């Protein structure tokens, strides 16, 4: 698109973009999916980007982001070798690569039987089985109040579609690589993912976010996961984006009875990060484990907003988010737990622990429990402090220099979360990434 007039901001450009794109859909604009998109773009128009006056965006200012210009759907040609350098080593897996939001079949490779596990681009899935996609799409990820989800919904076209057939235990994980290739300009992408884990089935899925190059990138990622009765999903989100990257990500996990979920959100790096994670426990006897780790330094900003919504009785949730902040980094943790009137015998636990390594780094943390049932066990705790001076002195008194001692202690602090990662190869990979970043402490 040629910008001949003055650039008036991301919102205007997106609204125009939508119209242009719609006019090129060649019949696609009549689909049910597109009806939802159109509703969503209208809602985005009404909402506009949030400002810090918005309660949910008090400490995360998207102002700078919304003034920038980005190229959407920029095509590039990455080679297998380019991508290979980013992959988790020694992990036999289904690998799916997206570059600037576009699915790259030539860089992807599936190893699990297709009858058990379907992995394809969202667009292909919609083409093949529109009814199935419509049944799950935009169900949990509401766009009523959330401009970024509205935007994602409006432009929903590409992303990972994963469907695990009932009664299947998928041995090999699905690794989704979302690469922003910002080597020759500012790029933006909006991957829209939809995962459905059938009854009694189990799957492990990891989303990786990378940036190449030094230009700015903007990723607005939305993932909706449905975990059917008695099923299990292990979900990892690993962020290794550049200093100039903006990442707004939202994941909704909807769990039906006796289902279990595990999530780990690991922000190794990224200039400006906002992660929303919402786990809806909509059946009885569900179990949800939420882990998070963020290590911002320099001028990085990492915001994690989580919601665990206990809608039905006898479910269990446990959440641990840990942060290590250095330089002039800022961090935000907002953890909501809802226990609805129906959800008796709920067990819900939440903990957020932070270490601040420099005088200029800061952390804003807010647990929020809203409990409407009486027979429940809930607890939350939050701590933000410095490295333990006694521990530091102890290690130094053994001959370890101050920097090495600090990195030993911070890596150990992160270890509580890293040790929860079930996949050994992934755990090792994360451990190495985290150690490398904290080694610079």
């Amino acid at each position, binding site marked *: 698109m040629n910008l001949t007039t003055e650039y008036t901001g991301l919102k205007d450009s997106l609204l125009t973009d939508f119209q242009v794109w719609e006019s090129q859909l060649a019949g696609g604009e009549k689909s049910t999916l597109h009806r939802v998109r159109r509703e969503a773009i209208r809602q985005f128009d009404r909402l506009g980007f949030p400002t810090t006056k918005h309660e949910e965006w008090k400490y995360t200012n998207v102002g700078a982001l919304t003034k920038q210009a980005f190229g959407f759907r920029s095509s590039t040609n990455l080679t297998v070798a380019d991508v290979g350098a980013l992959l988790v080593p020694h992990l036999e897996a289904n690998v799916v690569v997206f570059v600037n939001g576009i699915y790259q079949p030539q860089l992807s490779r599936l190893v699990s039987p297709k009858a058990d596990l379907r992995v394809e681009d969202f667009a292909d899935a919609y083409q093949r089985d529109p009814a199935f996609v419509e049944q799950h799409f935009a169900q949990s990820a509401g766009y009523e109040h959330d401009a970024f989800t509205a935007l994602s919904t409006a432009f929903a076209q590409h992303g990972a579609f994963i469907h695990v057939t009932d009664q299947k235990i998928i041995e090999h994980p699905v690794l989704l690589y979302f690469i922003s290739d910002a080597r020759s300009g500012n790029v933006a992408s909006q991957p829209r993912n939809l995962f459905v884990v059938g009854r009694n089935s189990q799957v492990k899925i990891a989303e990786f976010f990378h940036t190449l190059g030094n230009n700015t990138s903007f990723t607005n990622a939305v993932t909706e996961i449905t975990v059917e009765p008695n099923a299990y999903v292990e979900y990892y989100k690993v962020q290794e984006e550049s200093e100039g990257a903006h990442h707004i990500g939202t994941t909704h996990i909807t769990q039906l009875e006796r289902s279990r979920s595990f999530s780990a959100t690991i922000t190794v790096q990224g200039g400006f990060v906002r992660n929303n994670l919402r786990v809806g426990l909509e059946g009885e006897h569900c179990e949800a484990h939420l882990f998070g780790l963020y290590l911002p330094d320099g001028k990085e900003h990492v915001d994690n907003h989580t919601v665990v919504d206990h809608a039905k009785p006898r479910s269990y949730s446990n959440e641990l988010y840990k942060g290590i902040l250095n330089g002039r980094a800022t961090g935000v943790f907002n953890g909501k737990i809802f226990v609805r009137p129906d959800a008796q015998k709920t067990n819900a636990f939440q903990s957020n622990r932070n270490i601040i390594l420099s005088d200029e780094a800061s952390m804003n943390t807010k647990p929020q429990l809203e409990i409407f049932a009486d027979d429940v066990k809930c607890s939350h705790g939050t701590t933000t402090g410095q490295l*333990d*001076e*006694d*521990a530091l*002195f*102890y*290690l*130094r*008194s*053994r*001959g*370890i*220099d*101050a920097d*090495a*001692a600090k990195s*030993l*202690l911070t*890596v*150990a*602090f992160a*270890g*509580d979360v890293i040790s929860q990662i079930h996949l050994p190869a992934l755990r090792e990979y994360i451990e190495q990434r985290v150690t490398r970043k904290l080694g610079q402490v």
Partner: protein
Amino acid sequence: MLKISNLQASIGEKQILRGINLEVRAGEVHAIMGPNGSGKSTLASVLAGRQEYEVTDGTVEYNGIDLLELSPEARAREGVFLAFQYPIEIPGVSTTNFLKTAVNEIRKHKGLEPLDAVQFLTLMKEKMKLVNIDQALLSRSLNEGFSGGEKKRNEVFQMAMLSPKLAILDETDSGLDIDALRIVAEGVNQLKRPDNATIVVTHYQRLLDYIIPDYVHVLYNGRIVKSGTKALAMELEEKGYDWIKNEVADAQAG
């Protein structure tokens, strides 16, 4: 080896060490005794380089260098070792984990090649036997959930691994049962060489049955108020500290 002259140290406004004088020569064992709160651990911490304590006066010369100028890690590399009275718990860091770094840092300082994994393990096995400590304990988070005795044994194990020139044992005998006490003491004795020295801080004469001191000092109210031989320890065991406190009071009055 170590010459402490008029050492004064305080924390905040509070003066704790009020002029310590002590000389330790290579090959010697010195015992420091004294009532609770008299400044024994503070002295040990100041020697190890704890920055919380401010040295307000005095000097510490260690093998010809100004010890107070050095960072804690530099002191350790020069051969100073402190066995903590209250070993710190460090979740997520195992003894094995940090000792390898420590051992190799000290070797590097001495101009020695680092130990590889196998060599390190061999050294560990050897020293583990010395203090009768379990491998499993060394793989656990440092001191987390260790019993009192296990913590102390771990301190002596680390000392054995780092083979210091000047070892300061701060109440390493407290909380040990009789067998453990003997093991720990034997460990210390086996590490004794003509070119190193040991300072043991203790409340109990019984440790000195195993680790025979050349000198016994009484630290009271931030000063060494009495020095003697092992006989002094026996006298303290028998009579307590009141007579010494009285002597000090009399001396001050006179």
